[in-house]
């Protein structure tokens, strides 16, 4: 059986699928990274993405244009992220509860809105056509290279965007004034406040940025990955992203690697579940098992780091 799995892993279509599966998790993980850097825990990623997935397909259908669909999903994402911000920052509700509220609202709310707008029940399969999906791109030259071309070329536009975003988020956080303020606010808001930084405004900005990524992630799911909207479409990716954020030590690049790990686990699950004699229940637990193992490794490494830091300090004194 191991041989079977081995031979699957070393096929280009398997590696290709890792990137496809990783992209939406990565979007959500970046959303978590930016919010968490500003000290706001956006636990509503899951729900926001679901709303975005719905409105992405709907707007694409109404305008018959996939690009407007994606943009609308982004706007909707920002709206819901700011809504959480409004409750948490303006009205002083617990941000976790505000996030849970959005998650809960999304599962019923999307069905309701879908029916209200289109009369469809549960999914949008009847509304979409292939031209309303996010297109894939063949990268010239690269697609001629054997193996590498098969793996890296032919992905959806947003898959590339997801990986480019890792770099852009890093630039944002570490090379711009707003990024410096976001990091300062997240770590010691009194310090930021004492030098005249508008703490609440910065938190809104961070939430809005995380909304943008939710929008892209949601649109990716309904307009490419599943090719239509249904209410189970996000399937825990918002929560896995929170784990990826933590496992990646809150850094964009770290979050990318942990997202890839989840992507790998999920891709493996899809493959292995086809093999005879393997318990499918056990296999479907795999991505979550990877989450747990990842968190354990992360916790152990942080503890070691803290210890080393303390030891260094003592030496200095």
């Amino acid at each position, binding site marked *: 059986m191991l041989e079977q799995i081995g031979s699957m892993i070393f096929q280009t279509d398997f590696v290709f699928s890792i990137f496809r599966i990783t992209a939406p998790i990565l979007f959500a993980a970046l959303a978590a990274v930016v919010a968490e850097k500003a000290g706001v825990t956006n636990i509503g990623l899951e729900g926001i993405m679901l709303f975005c997935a719905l409105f992405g397909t709907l707007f694409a259908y109404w305008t018959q244009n996939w690009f407007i669909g994606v943009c609308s999903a982004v706007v909707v994402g920002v709206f819901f992220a700011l809504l959480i911000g409004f409750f948490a920052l303006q009205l002083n509700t617990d941000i976790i509860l505000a996030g849970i509220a959005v998650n809960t609202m999304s599962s019923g709310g999307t069905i309701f809105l879908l029916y209200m707008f289109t009369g469809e029940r549960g999914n949008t399969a009847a509304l979409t056509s292939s031209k309303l999906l996010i297109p894939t791109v063949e990268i010239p030259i690269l697609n001629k290279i054997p193996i590498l071309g098969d793996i890296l070329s032919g992905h959806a536009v947003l898959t590339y965007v997801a990986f480019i975003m890792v770099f852009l988020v890093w630039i944002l956080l570490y090379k711009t004034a707003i990024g410096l*303020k976001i990091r*300062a606010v997240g770590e010691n808001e009194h*310090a930021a406040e004492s030098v005249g*930084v508008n703490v609440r405004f910065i938190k809104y900005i961070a939430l809005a940025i995380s909304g943008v990524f939710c929008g892209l992630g949601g649109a990716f799911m309904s307009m490419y990955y599943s090719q239509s909207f249904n209410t189970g479409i996000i399937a825990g990716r918002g929560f896995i992203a929170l784990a990826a954020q933590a496992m990646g030590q809150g850094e964009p690049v770290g979050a990318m690697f942990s997202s890839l790990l989840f992507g790998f686990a999920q891709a493996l699950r899809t493959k292995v579940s086809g093999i005879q004699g393997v318990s499918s229940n056990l296999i479907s637990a795999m991505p979550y098992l990877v989450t747990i193992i990842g968190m354990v490794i992360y916790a152990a490494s942080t503890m070691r780091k803290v210890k080393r830091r303390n030891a260094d300090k003592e030496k200095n004194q």
Partner: protein
Amino acid sequence: MSNNEYVVQMKGIEKVYSNGVAANQGVDFFVKRGEIHALMGENGAGKSTLMKMLFGMEQPTSGEIIVNGEKVTLTSPTVAISKGIGMVHQHFMLVPSLTVAENMVLGMEPKKGMFIDYKKAVEITEEYAKRFNLHVDANAKVIDIPVGMKQKVEILKALVRGAKILILDEPTAVLTTQETTELFKELIHLKEQGFTIIFISHKLKEIKQITDRLTIMRNGKSMGVYETKDISEQEISRLMVGRDVILTVEKEKAEPSDVVLKVRDLEYTDSWNRKMLDKMSFSVRKGEILGVAGVEGNGQRELVDMLFNLNVPDAGTITVNGQNVIGTPQRKIREMGVSLIPEDRMTYGIASSGSIEENVISDRFDKKKFNKGPLFDMNAIHAESEQLIADYKVLCKNYKQQVGMLSGGNIQKVVVAREFSCNPKLIIADQPTRGIDVGATEFIRKKLVELSREGVAVLLVSADLNEVMELSDSLVVFYNGKIAAYFEDTSVLNDEMMGEYMLGLKKQSDEEIRRVCHE
């Protein structure tokens, strides 16, 4: 006009907090341009409040503030900064994972196009560091630099924002001796360049060393302004420490017998690497109230925490009637007959959302008396609560009332009711009457005396000089984590003597201090 001479004039400043505490009562505070001016006073004298108003963190109830000859309304730190006032807080306002340069420019980042010009930030930091002789490592992360450098970063932060007047809130409290010496050099350097420095402290030696003039505060009032060179340390201590009204408590003479609490060679170094307890030894006997006096931060809090196993000493022993306390669970400590009135009553004294009843039975709900099989005997619990409310005169609707809704004095009475009624052998009373009304204060003091005369050993830690001098039968003074003096009989004491020991001007011989061990 005096405008040229004085850069800060605070006139007739009153500050009354919403809970009725008058922290400043008609304070005048004048600072000359280019001087180092000390603001002195014990904890709670109102010096921090005064400075918070000068830095715009709080607004005065009445009075006026004039900066550089211009009457100002300082509504926020940002406004104060724009008037050239900078403050270095006791707890640093730095972001640990950012570099020194990033902390410096936060909120005023130099930019190159869309991006931060980090190179420029480093340049600015190094330029200021050089100009003011405050050496910092611009590229190091704040989390990795020592405390002394963090303080320099704070000073530079204020300077880079254009501060001409620097307020330093107890800057030496977190520094080692070398770092302090270095800081003083830097401050004098700043003074030479025309900066004005306000230096909050209660350390006499430092004040004498670097300040030009000083203002002393006591109980929310100014005790006057003095030229540092013209006033003796004794004089300062007399003005700083003292009572406006002398309170007397009637009590019979104590007849102390066996030792109950025995503390030997206790040592503790805190996370700032400061020695908070240094070979401390003393005993408290049955039937006496031993007072602990001292300026706050000289080891009192650390000691109390250790007596109730809320912290663990580096070395030494603590026993109650021969039983070890260190590392013993609080429940066991209570079973030994130890009661605690904690300083922070809202955190350690009560559960504020619980009812009075729940709070008073929280140490005894598992007793047979209050249980019927697996369930509580609610009648017994109600009866106990009602009894305690009556005995301790807790002003409330009934035992179901939420404790957090009561007044400070009544909350403390709830704590006291529980702690005094559990048949204690040793009571540790940490600031038992701080911030509560006169009626409750008197009641609690009477109860303490009453219990001690019935044979309970009492350790009374208090920053209230009246309380600790009048209530205690004998008394120790803490200074720098050590006992500076032991007085077997408090009736011979006066404020002046106390001040000298509390501020470290005097220290008894080891033999005299050793007497408190009663061996």
